[in-house]
């Protein structure tokens, strides 16, 4: 096969793009395997050092926080639970509300849809005080429920599911009806399997959204056992300046690398579904 100049240029651009994405991560990873002193004196590293196990062990298990109670491992678990809860509930609620909007032709369907859509204009950051008030009145501060619940409604996902359901031919519903499917089984047996690509995509987006939440958990949690990764990021950056010790640069890098793992895992795991769904373009 003859390689055209345009292809070479395209590849160069792509390779540059990949480098731009990968190099910082590699530097972070390589630097996280050195002594903090080495990094402070010699700058960031491109090669793997000999402190890998020690640094990561320390980051994961050392207790931190004001009361020295929470470990990074616990924060990862918290963030993972929060992101998982948000992503799962967002997908489930959006899919179900879109189902109601598309298939139950009640008069208010359109106004209600727009009402849901308008909530895009009021993200959590805008309504954070009323949200906090409600959650605290319900006694949900310092709980996973409190972390997850105010974030589970999603106009974006509802919109995407609605658009998808609208493309499903009516005959499918009619045929299913004649085959004895009720409203619930049509949703479970048809819409869910047909939209699994969609579900995977939405889950990825919403997981990353939930995982990277900062302001809400910061306001919501006073107990350290509910701290999340992004909050920890701030703590690990500020703590060293409080004492006389050197900044623990290597551990920071280790923390950054660790904090990337859960979202990457989710993407890698769901990608299989994602691509499978893309190949079978059937409806």
């Amino acid at each position, binding site marked *: 096969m003859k390689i055209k100049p345009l292809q070479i240029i395209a590849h160069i651009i792509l390779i540059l793009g990949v480098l731009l994405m990968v190099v910082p991560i590699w530097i972070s990873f390589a630097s996280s395997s050195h002594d903090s002193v080495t990094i402070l004196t010699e700058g960031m590293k491109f090669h793997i050092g000999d402190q890998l196990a020690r640094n990561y062990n320390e980051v994961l298990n050392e207790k931190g926080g004001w009361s020295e109670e929470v470990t990074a491992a616990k924060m990862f678990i918290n963030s993972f639970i929060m992101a998982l809860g948000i992503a799962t509930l967002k997908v489930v609620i959006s899919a179900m509300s879109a189902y109601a909007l598309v298939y139950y032709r009640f008069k208010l369907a359109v106004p209600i849809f727009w009402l849901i859509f308008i909530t895009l204009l009021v993200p959590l950051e805008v309504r954070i005080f009323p949200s906090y008030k409600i959650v605290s009145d319900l006694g949900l501060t310092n709980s996973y429920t409190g972390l997850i619940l105010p974030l589970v409604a999603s106009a974006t996902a509802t919109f995407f599911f609605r658009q998808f359901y609208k493309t499903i031919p009516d*005959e499918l519903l*009619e045929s299913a*009806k*004649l085959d*004895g*499917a*009720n409203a619930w089984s049509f949703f479970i047996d*048809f819409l869910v399997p047909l939209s699994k690509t969609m579900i995977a995509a939405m889950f990825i987006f919403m997981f990353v959204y939930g995982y990277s939440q900062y302001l809400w958990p910061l306001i919501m949690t006073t107990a350290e056992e509910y701290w999340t990764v992004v909050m920890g990021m701030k703590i690990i950056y500020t703590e060293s300046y409080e004492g006389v010790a050197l900044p623990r640069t290597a551990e920071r890098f280790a923390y950054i690398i660790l904090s990337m793992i859960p979202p990457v895992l989710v993407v890698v795991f769901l990608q299989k579904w994602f691509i499978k769904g893309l190949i079978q373009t*059937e409806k």
Partner: protein
Amino acid sequence: MSFLDLKNVTKIYPNGTKAVHETSLSVDEGEFMVFVGPSGCGKSTLLRMVAGLEDITEGDINLDGKLINEIDPSERDVAMVFQNYALYPHMNVYNNLAYGLKNRGIDKETIEQKVNDAAKLLQISDYLQRKPSMLSGGQRQRVAMGRAIVRNPKIFLFDEPLSNLDAKLRIQMRLEIKKLQQKVGVTSIFVTHDQVEAMTLADRLAVINNGIIEQLGTPIEIYDNPKSLFVAGFIGSPQMNFLDGNIKNKTLSAEGFEIKDIDSDFEGEVKLGIRPEHLSQRENSLINLKVDLVEQLGSDNLVYGRLKDKKDFCYRCPGNLTIEKGADLSLNIENNKYYIFDKSTGKRVN
């Protein structure tokens, strides 16, 4: 009371469109009934009301002695084959067939037995593990039929199921549907806009126009004895020729010729209908045709031309006759097979 009884069934859509007007119809058990008519005539609406997919505005539908107006589609025990098949894209053929049975809570072994029997009958046993997207048009059609058969319903409903197939396959599937229906013996209603399909499949035929059944009868009855202008024009291919005329004292004068002693007391403006196949060439006959175009089909020739007053006219003759373009033909109506319709009402008058 017959197996399926429609009594004064009317459908008015919320926007005020009247799709079906007080239609009454009976279908006997095991009968193959075909609804035929142009698109938008209400034939599909009528079928969908039997299926329960459309509400009935007025009237009653009885199936097997039970009023089904308010019964949910899933409880009516009817099966439907849709125009685009509506196969379940994410399920393989086996599950497509089995889904309805599963919902009825039938045990696994019986389902397997039934699905395999239906698959054998339709010769789709080899594809049971495939997804619908991996099947050809004809195979999908068979799966759609299988899904209907496997449930052993009281009635089969077909909503233009052949219109997505190519011409050759359509004829083949038409034959298969007819054979299958005779073998299984299930009461069937088949909706189509194709009159050839209607003629070949039907035990009885309902010609529908503007939400009204214009005529109901066996295909041959309807072909031989159309009761209205619409039916006469709709059934038969090529279409019946229509000429304007006038009746006075039992004499019909049409464009350039007269027919005497007609069997009708009607007086006034009429339409004279003559089928292209009811004509033959004979010297000094009634109709003089100037040939414009000849379509040679092999078995037949379709001769298109004009009468004296430029009126388009078609004549069907055996394929072994050679007719040149531009020729003048003298045509006779065989056995006096002509139809006269009141021009204002469209009703047959002879």
